[in-house]
């Protein structure tokens, strides 16, 4: 039996079920990251004055700035991938989804260099309260990047072509739902960047 209302909108909600589903999931994600942001605020308030800023100065602002731009670019290419499907241009979809995947990979590689630079200076989550919340927040965010990439790869591989050929509307909706998740991951980083690196 097929899941109902994944192509045509339900009359009462005005939405397809998958879109309402992802938004409710994202609401739970807001609470997940919100709890950790709350932890950051109260750990910072309880820390000795200047302690958080001193440890934050160990982080690389240029690398994080590049990563911010990379993630914003990936968000744009994701929305362009969806728009390409709306315009029935599958080859452009492939290109934009490929760019999104590449940006996600670049983000992870830069994050890897950031982490290993810290480890080589013997800085670990156990080094300070700041580093504990830094690794927790960026680690959880990184796991979300990997999760998004797995779905992107799935939709980018030949199975994506098959889905597009057999049910184009359904495939477009799936990419839109993936996009909503991906923009949320970008959105979280937009707050993580100044909070962890700049303040």
């Amino acid at each position, binding site marked *: 039996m097929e899941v109902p209302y994944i192509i045509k909108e339900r009359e009462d909600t005005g939405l397809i079920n998958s879109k309402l589903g992802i938004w*409710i999931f994202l609401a739970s994600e807001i609470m997940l990251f919100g709890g950790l942001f709350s932890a950051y605020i109260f750990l910072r308030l309880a820390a000795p004055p200047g302690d958080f800023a001193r440890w934050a100065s160990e982080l690389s602002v240029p690398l994080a700035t590049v990563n911010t731009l990379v993630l914003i670019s990936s968000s744009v290419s994701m929305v362009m991938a969806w728009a390409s499907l709306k315009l029935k241009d599958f080859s452009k979809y492939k290109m934009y989804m490929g760019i999104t995947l590449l940006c996600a990979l670049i983000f992870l590689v830069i994050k890897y260099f950031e982490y290993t630079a810290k480890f080589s200076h013997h800085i670990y989550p156990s080094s300070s309260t700041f580093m504990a919340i830094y690794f927790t927040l960026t680690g959880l965010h990184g796991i979300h990047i990997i999760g998004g990439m797995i779905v992107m790869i799935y939709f980018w591989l030949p199975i994506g072509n098959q889905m597009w050929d057999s049910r184009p509307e359904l495939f477009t909706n799936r990419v839109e739902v993936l996009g909503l998740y991906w923009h949320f991951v970008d959105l979280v980083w937009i707050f993580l960047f100044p909070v962890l690196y700049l303040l």
Partner: protein
Amino acid sequence: MSSEHSTESIQDHIRVYLIVFGALAVLTVVTVVASYLDISTSEGIFLALIIASIKASLVAGYFMHLISEKNTIIWVLMLTVVFFFVMLFLPLISYTDQVHI
């Protein structure tokens, strides 16, 4: 977004996406520059959060289409925002415990 988008309206959307992309890139640079300004920590935090909120609104409004989204989703999100702030400041209660220690 509903499925009845015409080719022209999608082309308009694409123009908006590119403008938002430019705005986000500029605001990222502004955030970094602002962090080097000679202002107090509280002013710095305020400024950084204002810029981050503007960027987040652009992503949510245009890339996630919230600006033209159905009310069902808007209500779900408004409820989430309320609970988010309740949770954010819930630990403040613990401060009242410490007053007489």
